[in-house]
């Protein structure tokens, strides 16, 4: 670096890391339960992933390979700046390849490619309490979790059905972990909820402003709440990805002009690039090549 004072490895001081590490171990031991922790000020504003960054900083080692995604993309502001942050304070190797990463920090998607054992997925969480919009008092929501009293959440989903004919929640869709705690999977599209179930990777959740850490260990049951006559369903897309032709992946809508032109492309940029490298092509990619 230079003559100026340098930071401790991965920015946080050792006492802070120890405190966060203890919280992570308890979080893993109680899947889905939100462990309070003494969240620190980070050199970025709340809402930019301070919780995820503190979790990543506490687990990161010099041999880790870090991938950061914002939605599915490796190349958006939040992802680029967090990746640069860890390159600077931990000199850690970074990648955009899901396969090569040992730690993946995300806001908020889960990569399309199946994660494997030994990988850790770190979520940046804005509001960790799934019951918060139903009950604003922390003392009450804590009691509700203690008593496993989740009727209110089912009423909310029922009201969705009564008003809209179907469960209208499309992201931050509540899940029940290992048959006990109802958990907010962070504002992931509900498309990704099934990937949390029996995942081979360890999943850690950090909420910096709200000062909570929670976890889902590998091979853990994660069930999206639903009703027998209104079973949980994920979003379906009419068309495949316009660039790589992938089906059964989560697509982003991209507006192309002011005449109603639009395209739907993979939200997971690494997955899309991989497929194109393997020769898959969507209808708009083909057209672009024909024009050249």
């Amino acid at each position, binding site marked *: 670096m230079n003559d100026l004072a340098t930071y*401790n*490895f991965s920015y946080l001081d*050792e*006492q802070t*890391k*120890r*405190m966060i*590490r*203890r*919280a*992570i*171990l*308890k*979080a*893993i*031991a*109680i*899947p889905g*339960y939100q*462990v*309070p922790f003494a969240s620190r000020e980070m050199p970025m504003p709340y809402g930019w992933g301070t919780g995820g960054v503190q979790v990543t900083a*506490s*687990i*990161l*080692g*010099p041999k880790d390979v870090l991938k950061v995604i914002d939605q599915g993309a490796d190349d958006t502001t939040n992802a680029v700046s967090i990746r640069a942050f860890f390159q600077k304070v931990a000199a850690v190797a970074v990648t955009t390849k899901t396969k090569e990463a040992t730690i993946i920090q995300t806001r908020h998607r889960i990569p399309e490619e199946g994660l494997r*054992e030994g990988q850790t997925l770190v979520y940046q969480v804005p509001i960790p309490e799934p019951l918060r919009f139903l009950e604003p008092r922390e003392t009450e929501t*804590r*009691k509700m*979790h*203690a*008593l496993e009293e989740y009727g209110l959440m089912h009423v909310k989903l029922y009201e969705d059905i009564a008003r809209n004919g179907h469960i209208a929640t499309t992201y931050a869709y509540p899940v029940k972990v*290992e048959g*006990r*705690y109802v958990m907010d999977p962070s504002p992931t599209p509900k498309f990704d909820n099934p990937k949390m179930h*029996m995942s081979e990777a*360890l999943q850690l959740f950090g909420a910096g402003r709200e000062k909570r850490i929670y976890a*889902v*260990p*590998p*091979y*853990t*049951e994660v069930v999206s709440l639903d009703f027998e006559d209104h079973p949980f369903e994920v979003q379906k897309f009419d068309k495949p990805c316009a660039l790589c032709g992938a089906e059964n992946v989560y697509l982003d809508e991209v507006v192309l002009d002011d005449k109603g032109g639009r395209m739907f492309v993979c939200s997971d940029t690494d997955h899309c690039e991989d497929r194109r490298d393997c020769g898959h092509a969507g209808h708009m990619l083909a057209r672009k090549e024909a024009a050249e």
Partner: protein
Amino acid sequence: MASQSQIFAGAFADPVFSAQSVFKSLMDGFARPGQIIRLGASSVPPAPMGTAAGAVALTLCDHDTPVWLTPALAKSAVPQWIAFHTGAAVTDSKTDARFAFVEKGAPVPGFDQFSLGTQEYPDRSTTLVIEIGALSGGEPLTARGPGIRDEVTIAVRGLPEVFLDFWSANRAIFPRGIDLVLTAGDSVLCLPRTTRLVRQEA
């Protein structure tokens, strides 16, 4: 009186990276219960504390975590070693302890004597670090639960007969309960409170 070298020596050679490596092993251990993990960094705590137990103390204990020690550990140079290297206070009260250390061969207190957390804050429970004879070669037990695909066999040696009763009572009060780090030499085997253990049919 313990000799000074016993107290001041024996911590991690490289505190930042050793602590990270030991923590990573513990995180993997709790995320995938039942696997035996050799710690990547060693410590030399005063006898009779084992080297893996010492590494766990150096990695996780500080002034926020009162530590309970067995009578034999409390009489040794271990309290001063922990105080010097981690800043943690030793407590006589099992329910105040965030960590408890039991050396090899010492009687294991009932798990319900420690802090079990509350229904509202189940994370406020004691983590027990117990050194045993060996992490393999004992009576096979089938382990199931979060972190374990289907099931896994663990066969630790040197736990008291009543261990399974202690453990199932601990499992029954979920989400409250203690978490367990079993150590032998420089290896650990972690059992979070969620793991269910049953004897295998002969």
